[in-house]
């Protein structure tokens, strides 16, 4: 018995640990969604917000479209709840969902990041 234990010690210890690691990761990220999610959110350069600025190529108008944004980071389960208020949890752009474009009072882990002009002014709208 002891010899079998010695021979297969790697199997007896590492396989349960591996299964534990996989199942606990699955439970945390897939079931409870206990993680942070970050994304580019709507930013209004006309108000006091100091927005990031970027552009993308739009095939419909064959032109570069400039847009402003800010970074929001919040708990994934909150994000999911708020997105359902906008009627979708699939591939909806967060900029089109008002509920996820700010931090609610109950969201302790939520942070909004605006463009810092002291770092790289070219990234900022103003």
């Amino acid at each position, binding site marked *: 018995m002891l010899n079998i234990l010695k021979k297969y010690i790697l199997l007896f210890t590492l396989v349960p640990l591996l299964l534990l690691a996989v199942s606990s*990761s699955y439970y945390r990220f897939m079931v409870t969604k206990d993680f942070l999610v970050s994304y580019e959110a709507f930013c209004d350069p006309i108000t006091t917000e100091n927005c990031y600025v970027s552009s993308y190529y739009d095939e419909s108008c064959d032109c570069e479209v400039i847009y402003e944004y800010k970074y929001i980071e919040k708990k994934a389960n909150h994000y999911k709840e708020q997105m359902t208020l906008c009627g979708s949890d699939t591939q909806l752009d967060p900029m089109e969902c008002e509920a996820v474009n700010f931090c609610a009072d109950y969201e302790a882990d939520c942070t909004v990041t605006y463009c810092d002009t002291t770092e790289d002014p070219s990234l900022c709208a103003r």
Partner: protein
Amino acid sequence: MYCYLFEAPKYLIYYSNFRELDGYTLLYYSHIPTAVITLIVGMFLLFNARKSISAKLLFLISIFFSGWIFISLIAWTNINADLILSIWPLFGIFQAFISILSIYFVYTFINKEDVSLLVKTSFILLLAPVLLFAHTNLSVSGFNITDCDAFGYEGLVYKLYYTFLGLLSMVWIAILLIREYQTASEKFKKQIVLIGSGIEFFLLSFFITTFVVTYLAGIKVLPDSGYEMYGLFGMTVFMTFVSISIVKFKTFNVGVATSTSLVIALALITASKYTFSENRFDLILTTVTLILVAIAGYILIHSVRKEIAQRVKLQTLTMELEKANVRLKTLDKQKSEFVSIASHQLRSPLTSIRGYASMLSEGSFVLFQKKPKNP
């Protein structure tokens, strides 16, 4: 929760427009053939050398490496943030297992027997932190659904630890091989160089590329981790070296049919590059590689077949000699028996004949036989 800027893939990993995106050109070519060749070699070894611990370990390495490639493909092509994040910790786990199994493989390759309990315990202790902290914030804590990755949320200490395991395995393996090389036979020295350089090259390219590229992507120096794909080719080199070792030195005692199949598999996988080649330079490069693989494969198979044919001829001659030897022994035995019988059968009458002859020659026989004269 989905990455809203990207298109959803089909069948979990198939993204039809991958060529339109920067850094994706090599995606399937670097991943799929590498995984296929790794699994082919791993399975060949497992089924042809079932009793060999080294073969089993190489099979396990191929499983973990292919697993890494599979989750890498999911991370590259899928847009489901929950799914990507739940498999994200497996990158570290699989890399850590590849490191430790590589050391274990080299140990058994050299000694042809299992490692001691002490070494096994040290393997467990080295792997335990990676497994125990995989689901915690030390491993990964969040996801960026705009960029569709979690590089910015990876724990540096955790990442450094499993990369350290890769570096540790390289040093450990180098020490083991150098020590063995000094006392090994000439034939085994060549195997050590072949297998050793293959595994070291694989570990170096895989761990260094993965760490550097993903770290730079995490701090936004690189737009994505596209360059890590080049690190995967190290495994193809290692598996090629293992195949050459199998063919040339009969490592793992794999037969000629298997060796031929391995070379054919290598050629097929090289030829698959044609499906991904986009320009003339790519086509020329693929053709040159394929020709080189075909020539090298032909020479190797030819030399192995020749050697096998010689070995078979030698075995036949040995068997014929053994048969002749047995026949000779039988004949010798029969001769001895004949001589013994003949000797016994002849000796008895000869003795009496000699006795009479002796009596006749002495004249005593005549005297006794003559009747006495009557007075």
